[in-house]
């Protein structure tokens, strides 16, 4: 391993650690806008990680996905969500979380779990980014935990997008990036999903007069009870 490779490895490890930290922070945030801020930070960090991996491996394809990530996940999606939040007048809303202590304990357990299952297989890889596989797994599961614990539609969607971010991190962190065609396809799907989500927010608002998931699901249950 040359010196610059070792240095790149350290930078990537550092970014992996930061990604994990952001996943934890997203889980612990109460305020709508701070959730969004951390989410945007995650996107930017991802783009930076992709660029570093691209630089250290010399793969030009990765530069393109780094650029795509920067534009889509670092700027466009947070901006869209910010617009939606402003338009729906929910930017000041504070979301009651599940008991944050218990959430944190679960989160730590999830992290340990992913470390436990992924550690044995990291040995098989020769990539310099192999170490981040366990962290990526943890981030995926933590973002899912965020989706589960959230009560509002918008934060749930940010959780969904955070899962996608973590998956992207897994792809660049663990495998130096999926082939570009697949990457573009995934980015396209995420964009479409975000657009649909945006559409949904307004429908939900108009229909239910609230962004609470429980209100929404109760309409299904109520319908069932009527019958």
């Amino acid at each position, binding site marked *: 391993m040359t010196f610059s490779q070792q240095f790149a490895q350290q930078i990537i490890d550092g970014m*992996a*650690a930061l990604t994990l930290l952001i996943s*934890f922070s997203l889980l612990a945030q109460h305020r709508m806008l701070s959730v969004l801020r951390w989410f945007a930070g995650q996107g930017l960090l991802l783009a930076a990680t992709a660029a570093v991996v691209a630089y250290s491996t010399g793969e030009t394809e990765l530069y393109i996905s780094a650029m795509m990530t920067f534009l889509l996940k670092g700027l466009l999606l947070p901006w869209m969500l910010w617009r939606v939040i402003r338009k729906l007048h929910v930017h000041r809303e504070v979301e009651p979380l599940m008991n944050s202590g218990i959430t*944190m304990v679960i989160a*730590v357990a999830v*992290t*340990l779990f992913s470390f436990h299952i992924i*550690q044995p297989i990291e040995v098989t890889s020769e990539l310099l980014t*192999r170490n981040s596989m366990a*962290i990526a797994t943890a981030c995926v599961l933590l973002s899912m935990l965020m989706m589960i614990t959230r009560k509002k539609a918008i934060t749930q969607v940010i959780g969904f997008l955070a899962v996608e971010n973590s998956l992207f991190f897994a792809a660049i962190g663990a495998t130096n990036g999926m082939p570009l065609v697949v990457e573009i396809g995934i980015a396209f799907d995420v964009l479409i999903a975000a657009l649909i989500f945006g559409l949904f927010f307004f429908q939900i608002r108009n229909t239910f007069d609230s962004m609470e998931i429980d209100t929404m699901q109760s309409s299904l249950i109520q319908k069932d009870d009527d019958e």
Partner: protein
Amino acid sequence: MSSIFFQLLQAVLMVMFAPLVLGFVSTVKARLQNRRGAGIMQPWRDIQKLFNKEVVLADHASWIFRFAPYVVFTATVMAASVVPSLLLDTPLSLTADVIALVALLALGRFFLSLAGMDIGTAFGGMGASREMTFSALAEPAMLMSIFVLAIGAHSTNLTTMIAHTLHTPLLIQPSIAFALVAMLMIAIVETGRIPIDNPSTHLELTMIHEAMLLEYSGRHLALMEWASAVKLLLFATLIIDLFFPWGISGDASLVTIALALMIWIAKLMVLFVILAVMETSMAKLRMFEVPQYLGAAFVLAFLGLIIHYMLEVAV
């Protein structure tokens, strides 16, 4: 022989410097707030004055109340004297175990809380209960953050840990960064600074540390104040030792020791200026938010531990 001398010097310096440190922080704070401040020597003058004053004891005070200041002071000074500040390898360094250090501080805190409850006033009891609650949360976090470093060094002995840090090549180690942040957060709780506790407050309801000292006077109060100053310096030195030990002297020669002293003071000044800036720019946390703050510190330290295994232990 000379190493014993330097060991003594180290301990004396720690104890003597401590009030100066308090003065330094409050002077920097005053300057930041466009005040002149009382000067660096003010805490020394306060302590001196208190020693000359008569001790007033409450009627209900038991021997614990009178005994506690000496125990607290001794425990803190003992802890401070084993922490290497100038010389790495001293005669006492074998005892400089981090867990023992935490235990010594816990002993001091135990007596402090007992004394707070001993008089039976409402504020003393309240302060003691808060202190115990927070320390119950802070101590695991502190140990966790120290373990991140201890695992790398395969030892909880401070000297070994410092030597390990000095001898490993400079790497970007995210786990250590996490541990450092956690440690700083804990240090603020342990030393009772803003945003957890305000050492200069006069509002009894928001007090933690001060509430337990309300009934003290004279030399008892002086010892207590001095001990808490030593504790502040102790934590600063501990952070320097654990995370930025470069500059500490490896051998007991006069030149290197003098150099180490200067570097140590410089590092302390940087740290305390940061503390002063933080205290000036931050508001105190509401009491019920402190457990969350400590929880965050614990999670950070724990993440540091996990990340150490995930990223830094060679597979």
